[in-house]
């Protein structure tokens, strides 16, 4: 992406692709950008990732560390797959280690400046021909010296010196809290051209990382907070929600749900890049719906991915066998991959990145997630919505047919929190409900929504047998199934209501006779 709209300020593609999206092309070139955040918000990782991504693009870098020693930084960054020592050997990276040395006692006598530091940075930049510099962190400079006014003045000099060197620089700074002043010590006063803020807020007992570009002087960027995560072997990964939504495609190709009766209810099957939400109480047949969806894909030679957060692998395979599906054989054929995990193992942003990684690597045509409700409590409601948006956009972009399940809280009727929060994000919704009838509990299925297609509006009874799901006739003499309080009405009442409806609508077809009649 180039700066067609703002030719005044050139952008430097950072190589952190997700960041480049929200930064609309990258960081302002040959300028300094202030990265401000509270303790633990990921400033150091960000600063190192900026250099690491540059080195991968053939742009050498200099890391100026005021807080951790160079040795510590080298060690800490190994888990991200960044071999700093190797890059130093190859002349692609140079450290300026300005961390305090507790071994050496220092006395201040009279006035001084940070001329030696500037000379060292200049020296390191010349040595590796650096085009990128990261300085981590400004706050630590203040703690090394008593004279704060001097330090402020000297940092200003360093910022100007960096500009004169023609490098693109990141300076990190601490802030006291996630929503207060931009940074401590008033450093934003002299390097406020470009400011990005990292947040690591505690919401409902979970941590949620976000990144916000506060301003890029003279050039454009995405507004607002974007969730991001920090993962091993990946570093900083921003989740650019709005950018992803723009690139969604739409397909008219229909595929089978794995059950031709369900296909009929959906007007001929699911759309290829659609996402279907299957909602129901525990035991209503959600996992069965998922299993036949996967089976249907595998039968056509499509690769299918199952992310299971509620049941163990053994349970899943056993249940599938009970419905006549041989998951193990499908796996041996390379048509199915089952990933079982505990939802609490990591945050939702991490899950999104992990799942995207699995999808990219395996390349399925279908994927199912059973269940979304299990992930709902891992993060905040907002984080959950972002997760669903992120995953939905991603699989649509990859033209994968998706199926998510949601568990309702009550056995009879009702809706789930999951459902009410993400129903607008999915293309189709299938409800599975228990229906109490004269002392029996039957199961009902209905297609509530099918974006871009007509569908069966009836609530139909279905049974689960040895060979899976069988959809039967509609419940016609029962009302209130969806609300969880079914009420039986006499056939006469049904006739009367429908005959009035027929008059009103005209071409409306008459209902079938009732199943319980």
């Amino acid at each position: 992406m180039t700066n067609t709209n703002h030719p005044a300020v050139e952008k430097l593609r950072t190589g952190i692709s997700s960041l480049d999206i929200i930064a609309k092309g990258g960081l302002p070139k040959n300028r300094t950008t202030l990265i401000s955040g509270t303790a633990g918000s990921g400033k150091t990782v960000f600063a190192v990732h900026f250099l690491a991504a540059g080195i991968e693009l053939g742009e050498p870098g200099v890391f100026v560390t005021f807080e951790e020693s160079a040795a510590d930084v080298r060690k800490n960054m190994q888990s991200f797959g960044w071999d700093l020592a190797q890059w130093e050997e190859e002349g692609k990276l140079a450290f300026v280690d300005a961390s305090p040395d507790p071994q050496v006692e220092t006395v201040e006598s009279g006035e001084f400046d940070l001329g030696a530091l500037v000379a060292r940075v200049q020296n390191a930049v010349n040595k590796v021909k650096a085009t990128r510099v990261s300085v981590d962190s400004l706050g630590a400079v203040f703690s090394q010296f008593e004279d704060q006014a001097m330090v402020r003045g000297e940092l200003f000099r360093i910022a100007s010196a960096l500009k004169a060197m023609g490098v693109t620089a990141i300076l990190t700074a601490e802030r006291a809290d996630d929503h207060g002043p931009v940074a401590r010590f008033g450093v934003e006063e002299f390097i406020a051209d470009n400011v990005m803020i990292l947040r690591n807020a505690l919401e409902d007992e979970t941590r949620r990382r976000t990144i916000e570009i506060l301003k890029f002087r003279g050039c454009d960027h995405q507004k607002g907070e974007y969730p991001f995560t920090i993962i091993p072997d990946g570093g900083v990964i921003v989740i650019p929600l709005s950018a992803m939504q723009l690139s969604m495609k739409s397909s008219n190709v229909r595929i089978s749900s794995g059950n031709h009766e369900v296909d009929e209810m959906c007007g001929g099957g699911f759309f290829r890049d659609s996402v279907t939400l299957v909602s129901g109480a525990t035991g209503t047949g959600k996992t069965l719906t998922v299993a036949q969806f996967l089976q249907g894909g595998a039968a056509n030679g499509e690769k299918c991915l199952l992310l299971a957060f509620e049941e163990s692998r053994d349970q899943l395979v056993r249940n599938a066998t009970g419905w006549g599906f041989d998951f193990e054989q499908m796996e041996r054929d390379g048509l199915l991959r089952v990933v079982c995990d505990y939802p609490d193992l990591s945050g939702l942003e991490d899950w999104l990145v992990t799942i995207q990684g699995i999808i990219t690597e395996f390349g399925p045509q279908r994927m199912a997630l059973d269940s979304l409700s299990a992930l709902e409590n891992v993060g905040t409601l907002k984080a959950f919505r972002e997760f669903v948006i992120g995953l939905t956009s991603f699989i649509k972009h990859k033209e994968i047919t998706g199926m998510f399940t949601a568990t309702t809280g009550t056995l009879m009727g009702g809706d789930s929190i999951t459902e009410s929060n993400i129903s607008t994000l999915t293309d189709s919704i299938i409800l599975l409900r228990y229906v109490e009838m004269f002392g029996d509990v039957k199961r009902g299925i209905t297609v509530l929504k099918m974006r871009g297609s007509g569908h069966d509006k009836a609530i139909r009874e279905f049974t689960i047998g040895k060979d899976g799901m069988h959809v039967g006739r509609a419940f016609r003499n029962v009302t209130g199934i969806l609300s969880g309080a079914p009420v039986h009405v006499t056939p006469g009442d049904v006739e009367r209501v429908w005959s009035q409806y027929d008059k009103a609508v005209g071409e409306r077809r008459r209902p079938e006779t009732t199943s319980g009649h």
Partner: protein
Amino acid sequence: MEEVLSKYLLTLYVTGTSPRTRIAIDNLNRICKQELDGRYELEIVDVLEHPQRAEDEKILATPTLIKQLPLPLRRVIGDLSDKDKVLLGLEVRPNGVSSSSPSFNSAT
């Protein structure tokens, strides 16, 4: 102890030939003459000419005076205008008296 015989090995890091550099050099020469009476070797390093030396010694501020010998290593930063602090940093007792005071040494 042999403090009377030990020589002071000092290095002063400065940035170019600024007024602050000159003040620091003048101050240091005067203090050394008064207090160290020839028992010192002084090297002056301009970090603009030798940035790698500043890197190796992890110097941030200029002027920085480093006492390499006698051990332990000590640093004094600033233009050395506060003589008492310079002497404290160098662990030299004022008025030309030998620095070998037991109480002073035990404090380090």
